[in-house]
C-alpha cells in the first residue's frame, strides 16, 4: 500500500505542490486595487514630501532645495501652534459631541417602535447631505441680520436676543464645531447601532434578572460591550474633525480674525492662497503624521486582541460528586424593598418620555433641512426683510426655475445659476463612474483580503490600505493639482475620478472584505468542487450572495463622491467639470442677495439624491456601518 502511494506521488509531482499554495487568483484579485492605490496615494504622498523639502520663488517659479527649512519655518511659526490649539479644541468638541449624541441616537433607534424606519432615515439626512450644503444651511441659520435663528427670535418677540452669531470669535468656533457635530453624529449613530445590534439579546435579560435597572444596565452591560466600537468610532471622529474643511470654507473661512483657523484651513491658506507650496506641503505633512500616529494608536490599542482559546480539557469534578465537607453558604439579606411607580403608571410614563425624545430627535434632524427647503421656495426678497421673519411672504418656484431652466427666465438667472444643471450632471457622472470602478475592483480585492488574511502579503497590504484612510485629502490635493496640470488633465472629470479613487478604493475594499468574511468558506469550496474556476465561483456564487454588501458599498462611494468638495474645488475651474458643491460655493463668492434664492434651490437639489438614498436604502446604510471604516 505504502509503495503504491509513494509512486503515485512521484508520478504527479505537480499535484502535491498545489496543496496549500495561494492561488495566483488571489494576487490577481488585489493587484489592480493595490496598484491604483499606490499610484493615487503613494506617488502623491512621495511627491508632497519632495515639495515640502523645496521652496518656490513665486516670481521666477524656480524650485530650490531647502532641506527641512520649511518644517522649521512652519513649526516655529506661532500661527501653527495657535491653529493646533484650535484644532484640538474643535476635535475635542466634535469627538465628545458626536459620541454622546450618536450614542443617544443609536439607543433610541435600536428600540422597536412604530415609525422607526422613518426616524432612522430622517436621522441619516444631516450626514447624507454634502458638508457644503450643511455649511450653506447653517451659515444662513446663524447669519447676522437676516438669519433664520434671528428671524425666529424676532417672530417670538425676542428680537433683543438677535445677534450676529458668527461674529464673535470663540462663539463662531463653537458654532462651527456644533454644525460639524450635527453633520457627523449620524455616522457615529450608525456605527453604534451596528454594535448594539450585534449584542446578544439575552445579556440584558440576564442583567434584569440580576437586579440591574435601566441605568445600571447601560453603564455596566451596554457601554462595556460597545467599548471597542466606541474607541474606533472616536478615532474616526477625531480624524474627520482634523480634516474638517468644507463647512469652514463655507461658514467662516477661518474668521472672524483667525478664530476658526484650524490646522486644515491654515494648510489650505498657505498652499492655495499664499501659494507657498513648500511650506503648505510641510504643514500638511505634519497633519498627515498626526493622523498616522492616531492610526498607529488605533492598531496598538484596538488591534485584534488575542484571546486564549478555550481548551477542551475535561471539566474538573464539582464537589457535588464528592462527600467532602463543604464551605457554608453565606446568609444573604432579603431583597431590599425598592420604591417604584406601579407598572400601570410607569409604562405609559416611560412611553411618553420615549416619544418625546423621538420627537426631539426628529426636530433636531429634520427642522434645519426643512427650513432650507422653505428658504428655497421663498422669494429672495424675503431674506433681507426688516424685521426678519421665518414666515415667507409668499411661496414661489422662481428659484428652482432660475437654476433648472436658465434659458427660459430671461435675464433672471445669473451666470452662476446657469451652471447648476450641468454641475449636477457632472456630479452624477463622476459619482457613478468612480463608485462602479471602486466597487468592482474592491470586491475582488475584498475577496482576497477576506480569504487570505493570514498571509503576510495580504495582511500588510490591508494595513497599508487602512492607513490611507488616515491621509487627509488636503495632503493629496496639492500633488494632484501639480501632477494633473503637468499631464493636462486639470479641470476634467477624469481627474476627479482618478483622485476620488484615492479614498474610495480603500473604503470599498475594506467594506467588501468585511462582508465576504461573513460568508462561510465552505460556499467557495463547494463551488470549486463543483468545477467552477475561481473567477466563475466569484461571479456566480459569491457576488450574488454578497449583493447587499455591494449595494451598501456603491451607496457609500456614491454619497462620498457626490458630497466631495475640496478636491473638486482645487482640481476644477470651469463649468465643464465643476461639481455641484463647487458651484454652490461659487454662489457665496458672488455675495449678491438676489443670488441666494437660487443658491438655496441649488442646495435643495444637491441634497435630493442623498436624502432619497437615506430613505430608500436606509437598511443598507445601517448594514454598511458594520464594516466600520466608513468615510465621513
Amino acid at each position: 500500500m505504502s509503495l503504491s502511494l509513494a509512486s503515485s506521488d512521484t508520478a504527479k509531482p505537480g499535484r502535491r505542490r498545489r496543496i496549500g499554495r495561494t492561488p495566483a487568483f488571489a494576487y490577481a484579485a488585489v493587484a489592480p486595487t493595490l496598484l491604483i492605490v499606490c499610484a493615487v496615494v503613494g506617488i502623491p504622498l512621495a511627491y508632497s514630501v519632495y515639495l515640502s523639502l523645496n521652496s518656490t520663488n513665486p516670481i521666477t517659479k524656480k524650485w530650490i532645495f531647502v532641506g527641512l527649512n520649511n518644517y522649521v519655518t512652519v513649526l516655529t511659526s506661532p500661527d501653527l501652534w495657535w491653529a493646533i490649539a484650535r484644532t484640538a479644541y474643535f476635535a475635542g468638541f466634535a469627538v465628545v459631541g458626536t459620541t454622546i449624541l450618536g450614542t443617544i441616537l443609536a439607543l433610541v433607534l435600536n428600540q422597536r417602535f412604530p415609525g422607526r424606519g422613518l426616524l432612522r432615515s430622517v436621522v441619516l439626512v444631516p450626514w447624507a447631505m454634502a458638508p457644503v450644503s450643511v455649511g450653506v444651511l447653517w451659515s444662513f441659520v446663524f447669519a447676522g441680520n437676516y438669519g433664520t435663528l434671528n428671524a425666529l427670535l424676532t417672530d417670538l418677540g425676542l428680537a433683543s436676543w438677535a445677534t450676529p452669531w458668527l461674529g464673535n470669535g470663540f462663539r463662531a468656533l463653537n458654532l462651527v464645531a456644533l454644525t460639524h457635530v450635527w453633520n457627523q453624529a449620524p455616522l457615529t449613530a450608525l456605527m453604534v447601532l451596528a454594535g448594539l445590534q450585534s449584542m446578544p439579546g439575552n445579556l440584558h435579560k440576564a442583567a434584569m434578572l440580576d437586579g440591574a435597572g435601566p441605568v445600571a444596565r447601560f453603564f455596566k452591560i451596554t457601554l462595556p460591550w460597545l467599548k471597542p466600537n466606541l474607541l474606533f468610532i472616536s478615532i474616526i471622529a477625531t480624524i474627520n474633525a482634523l480634516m474638517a474643511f468644507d463647512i469652514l470654507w463655507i461658514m467662516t473661512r477661518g474668521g472672524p480674525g483667525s478664530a476658526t483657523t484650524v490646522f486644515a484651513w491654515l494648510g489650505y491658506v498657505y498652499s492655495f492662497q499664499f501659494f507657498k507650496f513648500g511650506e503648505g506641503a510641510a504643514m500638511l505633512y505634519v497633519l498627515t503624521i498626526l493622523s498616522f500616529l492616531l492610526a498607529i494608536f488605533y492598531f496598538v490599542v484596538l488591534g485584534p486582541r488575542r484571546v486564549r482559546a478555550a481548551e477542551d480539557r475535561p471539566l474538573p469534578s464539582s464537589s457535588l460528586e464528592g462527600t467532602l465537607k463543604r464551605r457554608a453558604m453565606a446568609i444573604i439579606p432579603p431583597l431590599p424593598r425598592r420604591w417604584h411607580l406601579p407598572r400601570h403608571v410607569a409604562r405609559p410614563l416611560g412611553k411618553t418620555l420615549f416619544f418625546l425624545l423621538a420627537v426631539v430627535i426628529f426636530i433636531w434632524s429634520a427642522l434645519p433641512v426643512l427650513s432650507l427647503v422653505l428658504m428655497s421656495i421663498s422669494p429672495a426678497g424675503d431674506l433681507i426683510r426688516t424685521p426678519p421673519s421665518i414666515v415667507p411672504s409668499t411661496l414661489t418656484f422662481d428659484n428652482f426655475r432660475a437654476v433648472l431652466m436658465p434659458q427660459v427666465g430671461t435675464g433672471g438667472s445669473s451666470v452662476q445659476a446657469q451652471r447648476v444643471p450641468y454641475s449636477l450632471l457632472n456630479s452624477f457622472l463622476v459619482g457613478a463612474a468612480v463608485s462602479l470602478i471602486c466597487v468592482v475592483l474592491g470586491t475582488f480585492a475584498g475577496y482576497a483580503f477576506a480569504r487570505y488574511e493570514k498571509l503576510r502579503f495580504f495582511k500588510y497590504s490591508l494595513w497599508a490600505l487602512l492607513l490611507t484612510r488616515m491621509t487627509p485629502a488636503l495632503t493629496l490635493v496639492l500633488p494632484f493639482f501639480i501632477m494633473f496640470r503637468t499631464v493636462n488633465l486639470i479641470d476634467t472629470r477624469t481627474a476627479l475620478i482618478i483622485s476620488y479613487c484615492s479614498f474610495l478604493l480603500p473604503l470599498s475594499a475594506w467594506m467588501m472584505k468585511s462582508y465576504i468574511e461573513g460568508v462561510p468558506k465552505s460556499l467557495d469550496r463547494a463551488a470549486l468542487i463543483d468545477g467552477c474556476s475561481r473567477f466563475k465561483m466569484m461571479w456566480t456564487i459569491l457576488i450574488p450572495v454578497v449583493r447587499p454588501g455591494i449595494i451598501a458599498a456603491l451607496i457609500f462611494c456614491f454619497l462620498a463622491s457626490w458630497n466631495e468638495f475640496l478636491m473638486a474645488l482645487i482640481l476644477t475651474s470651469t463649468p465643464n467639470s465643476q461639481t455641484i458643491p463647487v458651484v454652490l460655493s461659487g454662489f457665496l463668492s458672488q455675495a449678491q442677495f438676489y443670488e441666494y434664492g437660487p443658491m438655496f434651490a441649488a442646495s435643495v437639489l444637491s441634497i435630493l439624491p442623498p436624502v432619497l438614498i437615506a430613505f430608500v436604502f436606509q437598511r443598507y446604510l445601517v448594514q454598511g456601518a458594520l464594516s466600520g471604516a466608513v468615510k465621513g
Partner: protein
Amino acid sequence: MTSINIRAVAKTYGNFPVLKGLDLDIADGEFVSFLGPSGCGKSTLLFCIAGLEDITSGSILMDGRDISELDPRDRNIALVFQDYALYPHMKVKDNMAFALRQQKVAEATIQQQVAWASELLGLEQFLERMPAELSGGQRQRVAVGRAIVRNPAALLMDEPLSNLDAALRVRMRTEIKRLQRELKITVIFVTHDQEEAMVLSDRIAVMHGGVLQQFDEPMTVYRQPANRFVASFIGSPQMNFLPGSMVGGHGGGRLVGIRPHDLSPADGAGGESVRLEGELALIEPAGPVTFLDVLIGDTIVKATTTDPSAFRPGQRLTLEAPARMICLFDEATGARV
C-alpha cells in the same frame, strides 16, 4: 421555600397567540420540566414567570402572592439561558458577583457566597478567567453558578444543556439533579429532549401549540399519556399507532398505541397479550436491544428483541405485547380512552 402557581396564563405577540391559557401548580422544592417541540411556547412561559415578558391575561403567584405586576428584579428568580448570556467583559468571579453587587450586599458576604458556589460547582480555578477563555461545558457551569449564587427563590433553566456534546450533557444533567437535591430549590427546566425531562423531573409539563397537554410524574406520562400527542412525543423510538380494526377486539374509531419496547417476537409465554403478524422488513441493532421493523398490512411497526440472531429480513413473524401495556386513543380527538 417557593411554590409557583400559574393561573390561566395567556400571551399573544400581536395577534399571534403563543400561550393559550395555561394552569400549572408547582410545589415547593419540586423539579418540573416543560417539555415540548420547538416553538410551542416553553421559553415564552419561562420568561413570563421570570417577568421578562408581560402576560396578556391570567396571573402568576409565588407563595400565594401575585407577582404578575412585579419587575423581574423584584421576583428573586434566577434564569440560566440557553446561550448562557455570560457578561463577556467580566471575569467569571465578577459574573457571579454581579447580582449580589446590584443588591448592594456587603462585599465580604459576596466573596463568601462566590467561594461557596464556585466550590460547589468546581469553578475555583476559573474564577479569574474571562468567559471567552472557557469551553462550552465550563461556561454552562458558570451560568449555573451565577444563577445560584444569590440564593434565588426559584431557578429556571432554558434548555441549558442543548449546546453541549452528548457525553457532557448526560454528566451535567446528573449534576443539575444533585444540585437541586442539595439546595432543595424549586427548579423549572425547559427542554425539548424527552429523555432529559424523564430523568430529571419530579413532574413533566408537556406542552404543544401553547396548550398544556399533560402535567404528571414521568412514568405516568410515559405509561398513561393523556393523548396521542403526548404518547408520540414521549419515548424513543416513537410509539406505534395502529387502527383499532387491525388489533383484535377494538372497534373502529379507536387507535391502538404500543411502545416498541413492549412489542417483541412472540415466545409463546402465557399472560394476556395482543398479537400481530407481519413480514420482517429491517433489523436495526442498537446495542442492548435490536429494533425490528415489521410490515403489518401497509404500516411499519417497530418492535424490540434482545436476541436478533434468529431473524432474517423477509421472514414472517408474530409479535406480541402484554395487553396492559397498550394504550387506546379516540381516533377523532386523540384523547386516551
